[in-house]
């Protein structure tokens, strides 16, 4: 084919998609990146005066504590997802081949249904008159209903519910790629099961653990719906804080700076994960 023909073809294939993403993703992100360095106008607009004040303000103890709290909630969710998800993924990945895909689809199915509805289900389960409290009172375990809803416990439960399937999928793809003969060799050499797991399986599936953890952490820390609906309306996580700056406080520059700090944190984690995976693969190649 001629050189121009090739060029035209590329333009037709890539042009619309890249153009769309440039116009409705790159430029809008550029706009809020610029906003994050401007002052808030008197009536909630933008005063085009350069400032670093918004970023400085984000490190004010009040806002810093919200960032740290979000990180804590996300970390807790990630740890729980790993603890619950690993044994599940392990069983699926080491089970009979024809059962793996159906079992995995069964794990992923809820992940693809409406997030609001799935969050709402926990309001029904956890509220004072909810099923869990009723059941606990009925069997006489407690006298008065427990405050299960509108706190961090509810948020972590909701996030875990939302993102556990993701963790299982990441772990499954890592564990299922393991050669079962390596485990068998370890066992044949006399290592007990737990030792084979700790010294062989776990280190070899670290890339999957890293990928699943980073994704669950990133999705959790940037979440808005769960803290909003299960957290009881208080501003507990960065997502709510950004939302408030845009829709109630009308301080767009500050909200934009918070968004970029969040993105910066996410990028750092994604790069760290990519680096860890590369390193692990390099080591395996050398071994």
């Amino acid at each position, binding site marked *: 084919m001629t050189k121009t023909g090739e060029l035209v073809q590329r333009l037709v294939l890539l042009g619309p*998609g890249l153009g769309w993403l440039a116009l409705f993703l*790159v430029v809008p992100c550029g706009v809020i990146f610029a906003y994050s360095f401007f002052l808030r106008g008197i009536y909630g607009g933008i005063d085009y005066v350069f400032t670093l004040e918004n970023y400085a303000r984000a490190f004010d103890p009040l806002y810093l504590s919200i960032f740290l709290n979000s990180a804590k909630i996300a970390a807790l969710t990630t740890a729980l997802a790993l603890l619950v998800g690993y044994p599940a993924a392990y069983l699926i990945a080491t089970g009979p081949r024809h059962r793996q895909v159906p079992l995995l689809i069964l794990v992923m199915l809820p992940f693809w249904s*409406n997030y*609001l*509805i*799935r969050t709402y289900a926990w309001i029904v389960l956890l509220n004072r008159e909810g099923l869990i409290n009723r059941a606990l009172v009925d069997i006489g375990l407690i006298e008065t209903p427990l405050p299960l809803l509108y706190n961090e416990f509810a948020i972590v439960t909701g996030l875990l519910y939302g993102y556990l399937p993701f963790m299982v999928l990441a772990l499954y793809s890592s564990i299922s790629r393991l050669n079962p003969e390596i485990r068998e060799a370890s066992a044949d050499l006399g290592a007990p099961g737990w030792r084979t797991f700790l010294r062989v399986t776990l280190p070899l599936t670290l890339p999957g653990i890293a990928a699943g953890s980073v994704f669950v952490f990133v999705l959790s820390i940037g979440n808005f719906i769960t803290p909003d609906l299960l957290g009881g309306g208080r501003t507990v996580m960065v997502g709510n804080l950004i939302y408030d700056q845009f829709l109630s406080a009308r301080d767009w520059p500050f909200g934009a700076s918070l968004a970029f700090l969040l993105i910066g944190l996410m990028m750092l984690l994604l790069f760290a994960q990519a680096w860890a995976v590369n390193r692990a693969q390099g080591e395996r190649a050398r071994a």
Partner: protein
Amino acid sequence: MRHPIERRLLAGHLGLVYLFLYGPILVLIVLSFNKSGLPTAWTGFSLEWYGRMLRNQAILSSVGNTLIVASVSTLIATSIGTLLALGIDRLRPSALLEGIVFVPMIIPDIVLAIALLSFFTLLNVTLGLHSIILSHAVFNIAFVCAVVRTRLRHFDKSIIEASIDLGASEFRTFRRITLPVIFPGVLAGALLAFTLSVDEFIIAYFTSGAGSASTTFPMQIYAMIRFGVTPEINAVATFVLGFSFLLILLSQRLNRGVTP
């Protein structure tokens, strides 16, 4: 089995995981048929809440809006996303390109929402269903592109060369060979895009503008949840769950053998 006890424990654990995943959903489904509508006691089977749902004008018009947004943004994203996947497939790997088609899938919704709101406001664009459609297409293009690329990776390119060598034109090769091969992927991508758009809340909320004319279904659900636990939501929830599970199972069938 070398360790039957260990595996039995693991199986018990997996059972609990499924209970955790499906328990809350089943509760909503059962409650949607409860006459009293309350989670406290079962007072008999009833379809009353479904009747109320179907008579609720706000719900019906929001469903209509969502169907418009989802179909149009899916049409845009499927055509553009498929072209993009074909284009990227021909290029040498590039980190920048990978980044730009990966970002829409991972960027927090709230960040994309405020970015698009700022962008539309800056340009004085009137907000409404059209701005939601433009916004939803952003992440939908990325997802369609990702699904089609998976399909392309499993596709033996030598068939294309053979076709060209045998004298078929570039276009004819595309229509008779490439398109039929990737078509299940395109369809699966479209279904995924449709599902994501039907479910998406925050970006729609920020880019819909004021007024109820452009309220989408998730926005309506959010308003109902915020308003308080009304039994009608259970019926709505069951309806939505059934609908999205159907779509996903369909897309799984289409993409069988390509993704696990």
